[in-house]
């Protein structure tokens, strides 16, 4: 997306949004990494809603659970850093959307679901996870990283090389 499609004010606002969402991801990841015994099993076992069986099954598979734990801890951390830096921000936004979608689906506040755990607010279908998810959708489509972020520099570096040159470069011939 070219800058200029959105004017400067909204782009600054979306960039701030990207930084705070990234901050949240980064700390969620780091907090899990620095805990001695964090595992996603507890969260998965408490799953409710249409996908509850899937999450509970996953919690009972030691191999898959180990991968899930590693992917969650490192994934959240990396997505957080990338969002904050504005590096590969579209890829990071998509990955972030994927993570939040999984968290949301494990405990969705759908109609008719009641939770015994006290929640700090009142939710019907939409909760804060979903709001953060849609914040990432805004970041995804706005190209905020190319407005203010390392993506801008990456983009320039790549764009500096004329495409024709790359296309017409002679294929290297290995000596026989």
């Amino acid at each position, binding site marked *: 997306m070219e800058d200029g499609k959105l004017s400067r004010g909204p782009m600054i606002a979306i*960039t701030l949004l*990207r*930084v705070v969402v*990234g*901050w949240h991801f*980064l*700390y969620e990841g*780091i907090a899990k990494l620095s805990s*001695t*015994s964090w595992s996603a099993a507890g969260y998965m076992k408490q799953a409710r809603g249409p996908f509850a069986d899937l999450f509970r099954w996953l*919690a*009972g*598979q*030691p*191999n898959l*659970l*180990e991968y899930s734990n590693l992917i969650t801890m490192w994934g959240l951390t990396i997505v957080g*850093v990338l969002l*904050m*830096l*504005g590096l590969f921000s579209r890829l990071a936004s998509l990955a972030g959307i994927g993570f939040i979608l999984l968290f949301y689906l494990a405990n969705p506040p759908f109609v008719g679901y009641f939770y015994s755990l006290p929640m700090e607010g009142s939710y019907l279908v939409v909760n804060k996870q979903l709001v953060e998810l849609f914040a990432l959708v805004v970041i995804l489509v706005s190209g905020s990283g190319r*407005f*203010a*972020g*390392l*993506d*801008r*520099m990456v983009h*320039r*570096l790549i*764009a*500096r*090389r*004329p495409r024709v040159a790359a296309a017409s470069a002679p294929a290297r011939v290995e000596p026989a």
Partner: protein
Amino acid sequence: MAGDEKDKDKARSAAEGPRRMDRRDLLLGLSTVPALGLFGYAWQKQRQYERAAREAAAAPQQAAAADVQTVNVALIGAGAQGQVLTDAMLRIPGLRFRAVCDVWTEYNQRRVVNMLSRFKHEANGYEDYREMLDKEKELDAVVIATPDFWHARHAIDCLKAGKHVYCEKEMSNTLDGARSMVAAARDTGKLLQIGHQRRSNPRYLHCYEKLLGEAKLLGRIVTVNGQWNRAVAADLGAPDRYVIPEARLKQYGFKDMHQFRNWRWYKGLGGGPIVDLGSHQIDIYNWFLGSNPTRVMASGGLLYHDPKTHEWYDTVMAVYDYDTPAGPVKAYYQTQTTNGSQGYFENFMGDQGTLLISESELNYAGRVYRDPNAPAWDQWVQKGYLTAPKIQEVQEKAEESSAILDVRESASPDEHKVPVVLRDPYHQPHLQNFFNAVRGKAKLNCPAEIGYESAVTVIKVNEAIDAGVPLSFKPEDFKV
């Protein structure tokens, strides 16, 4: 039109070639990097805060630690229970971890050694406890949290090597094993504490010493009931890359990895739920009643779980007869592992009151009910032994519901709370008692002899289920 503008733009950029990176690109490109620095700063602050909070929690203990003799400790068995004990020990002043022994070197051993190093304990990892005893000459005490069928060998060899031992319950899976442990403790003169940790829990001590001993609030105890209801739990597994090679599993007495992880369910290795859960609570029956049972009848079986991977009984119901100094008592206990409702508690019922108690701080943490015909408890409330009663509004409710309070129905008793809360991990006071005893400043709350009495009481339940008839205890059964 906007479209025309865009086309013009494109044409211009094509003519000029790609735009070079300018200062604006550099500034905007790096504009959000400082946020990462800010994050790093906030994270550092948060870590400092957490460290300070941890140190503040340990401050009174640290102050005491100054004049406390350092005890060098090793852990044998770094599984789930070993972890629980380690977490509690890290809060006890004056301990220095020297070694961690676990045959699951790939996972448990490494995990606990790494965790200890984060708390500045340099512990060496061992697979073979004998090698550990050979090399770690400066050890004072060993904490054992291995599967039950290893307890006797581990404890006896450690005692003979001159170490004091804290051994998890059940003391042993066989009475022969348990007896030889008592003998080894006597022969060596070293301390052997068995991990019935309720014996050091301040709430249980308060109830035993003050409510039952001094105030005799319950009057004549005639019946006891207790339970541990636990929900279905999936079998424990292990990721493929941490699986122990078969030769090593066999060497340490396990058929395969599943058995290694789920040893509590196998005959010859553990004792099943009645031993894992029941022994904690039946031990309290013996303690609070001040005597050992004379008879037990029991029913149970493997009603729910897969018999291919579960040998012990998932459901057990037992009734003990006691002949206490105050008179005969019947005590019921049940454990089932298919539904966790109403959790776990012990309930002592006398002609003047009821004591409902649990190790859990969340449920049944200590309630005393005064029977309407008991003498007033005001003096005990004034002394702070109990909270003031919550009056049951039975009369009002009965009127509301237009039901008549039948003359045969007893009025509900007043409910008092036991005002003792344990804010530390459940096992900490019992470990603290052990280490105080190691330093010569306390008597063990659960020495080998008491652990043995408890083992005799509990292991008999499994025998009674198999026998299908009541089994008797002789007083000498409890002696070594």
